[in-house]
């Protein structure tokens, strides 16, 4: 299974990739929504996208909207990763097609919990 990590911070991408890899995923990464769409165009839909909210060029919400327009995207699950200060935006993201959200800072366990809700982890 593959997960695409979308975050403008390299450090954040490393942190998230590490956890997701431990859960048995292969990972790819992208620095913002636009790069994530390019990744999908090249590699096909991953099973999971972990997407940051605040990014340059194309932010998380714009990415969710654009990704859900793509034909055949239905099986792809999107998990928004936000901070407390962005909590109010979560609803907008869920309405636009995100499947779950995760609040920073998170632990391996909290990711695992969310992923089992999505049916991606035991």
């Amino acid at each position, binding site marked *: 299974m*593959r*997960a*695409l990590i979308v975050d*403008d*911070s*390299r*450090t*954040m991408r*490393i*942190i998230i990739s590490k956890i997701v890899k431990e859960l048995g995923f*292969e*990972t*790819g*990464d*992208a*620095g*913002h929504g636009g*790069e994530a769409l*390019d*990744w999908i*165009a*090249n*590699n*096909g839909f*991953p099973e999971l996208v972990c997407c940051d909210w*605040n*990014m*340059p*060029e194309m932010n998380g919400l714009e990415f969710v909207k654009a990704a859900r327009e793509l034909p055949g995207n239905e099986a792809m699950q999107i998990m928004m990763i936000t*901070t407390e*200060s962005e909590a109010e935006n979560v609803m907008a993201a869920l309405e636009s097609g995100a499947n779950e959200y995760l609040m*920073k*800072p998170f632990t391996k366990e909290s990711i695992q919990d969310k992923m089992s809700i999505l049916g991606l982890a035991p």
Partner: protein
Amino acid sequence: MNELINEFLVESYENLDQYDSGLVELEKNPSSKETVSSIFRTLHTIKGTCGFLGLSRLEAIAHAGENLLSLVREGTLPFTRPIATALLATGDAVRSILSELEKTGEEGTADYSELVATLIRLQKPEAPEEESAPAPATAAAPAPKAAAPAAAKPATPPAVATVAAPAVAPAPTPAAAPKPAAPAEVKTPAKPKAEGSEHAPAAKVTDGTVRVNVDLLDRLMNLVGELVLTRNQIVQLAGTIESAPMQAACHRLNHITTELQDRMMKTRVQPIDALWSKFPRTVRDLARMCGKEIRLETEGAETELDRTVIEAIKDPMTHLLRNSVDHGVESPDDRRAAGKNPEGRILLRAFHAAGLVTIEIVDDGGGIKVERVKTRAIERNLITAERAAQMSTQDLVNLIFLPGFSTAEAVSNISGRGVGMDVVKTQIEKIGGMVDMSTEVGKSTTCRIKIPLTLAIIPVVIVGCRGERFAIPQTNLLEVIRLDKNLTVETVHETPVVRLRGNLLPIVFLDSVLNLKSGSRHEIQHLVVLQAGDRHFGLVVDTIHEAEEIVVKPLGRALMSLSCFAGATILGDGHVSLILDIYGLGTRASMFQGTRSSHTLEDESKSAAGKGAGTTFDELLVFSVGGTRAAVPLDMVSRLEEFGAEQIEYSAGRQVIQYGGSIMPLISLAHALGMRDTPSSDGRVQTIVYTEGSRSVGLLIDGVEEIVRSSVEVQPSGRRSGVMGSAVIGKQITELIDTHELVRTHASELFH
């Protein structure tokens, strides 16, 4: 975890550079949504990551800053100066915690609660104006009162932006146009081509860039350098073999090596913005200290330079820029009176031309008052009144680069100023660059720097002298002439000269300067006409060999202090050859004593004919110590510094001071000379910084008196360690200090 912290540090430093310039940009253009989002993101990302790394102190500061910024971003709060100042202080606080983290792995214990309180207080829209002042002292940010015209000078110099920069180039702002720069260092994600999705094997993002450690690049560069040398050897050997396939292979090797070298060079370039991005902050802080309004603009920030060159021009450029702010741009009142926009403008411009990079610093200030420069230069005995009368405006303006010109300023405002503009000039000339000034009275001053793209590989001409071979950098070389019966060496006032196209050119014999005695001089010699800065002289050598591109190898530490040599290289035939440092060589041969200005050849001949080129001048820094008048040759002085007496600390029984990030031992000159100490009356101590190689030592003196330039004859005055003798300078007996010997006696552990 360690790797993660490193990544976090590199990323955060990169973002912080953009953060500072973003804030300054926002001050000018508060409505820029894009800028505010970008700086918001910096704090946001740092805060977000802190949670994972357990950095709670850093998180708290970033969080408070982020909250304040989010109000600005939403438009709830106007972006005011107090907010800008507090946010800049936030950046500084984050930087110092990061550097603490880098050094010790811990966040440190500095107290930022006042900063956080300020950030919180500013979130209330009605925060009264005077609350802008109390930015915490720990954050080292100047906090001038926004409205007060006479801004209080903060205790710390505004050079706070020079916090341990990461060893990689800052990534460009994502919104900026993609830069063609340094593929290995700048993250420009390549747009993957539209491939069919069946090509998608493992889930790896097709990223066109990788991040490479700079050390590795340096090592690769070195290896390429070795390859170039080997190539040169092989090409030379192949010349002796009659074999067509061999020749063809050689040709290919030649071609590929050149290309490899060229590409390798490109991996080491950085846009000059890597340096410039720190300047908006410097200018802002300094301008506010001087009570001026200055806008900094840049053109050609994407111009690429080797990173070693960027490193080398950092200090001189900062100095020039500070000079522009301090002396170039007038105060708002003066500008208004002159009918100008009260806000001054400084433009930084960079472009490539003729294999060099040109950098200009242009201010729209009052210009340099040429008459004042002239008077001052004459007063200081830097030129004679007759010479001055013949000089063009352009030449007169450039007198400010003479050593000793800006001394009044240096003495009154020693700290951080060094000895003056001549230091800038020397630093730039050291890397084979040139600097000159031009000015338009009342309108503008332009300082133009021309520097080579790289320092690692240089074109040279190989010359021979008494069986030895030396490399002369092409940048210093003007022409090569055969010395025969049409061109002979004459002597004018004991100085050997040749008549070249009607002008007198002073000359130096390489073998006598370097004391080469083996072998004999060739019957027919050659004259190499050289240029060091704006002085010309001829160097007599035996033979001229080929022109080559060589890889500069630095000399070992023991040889570093030899001013005549810039390095060494390995020639095509495997022999080692020393690279001549033309500037050092000229100095050694006393070519530059006396005034060093834009001597054209005509000037040389005039002065040679007029008052005798043989007059020797020495530049001496005269100072008082222990109630006595003493002097050292000015070229022994690397800087003059003033410290607070309380800054002196003791380490291993020796007085030391923290200086430029390291610990500098101090020698009490009075003690060393067996005189009594005169305690400083105002709590300040004056030091002469003497540097040899990478070691510096501070000599404590009472105070600088003057810089003199006269033909001084040293008279022996009894045997005293550290004293060369005495001389009459300005009608007073003055002790001449032998710095070299003195530091060896009194700081022997440092210099042996």
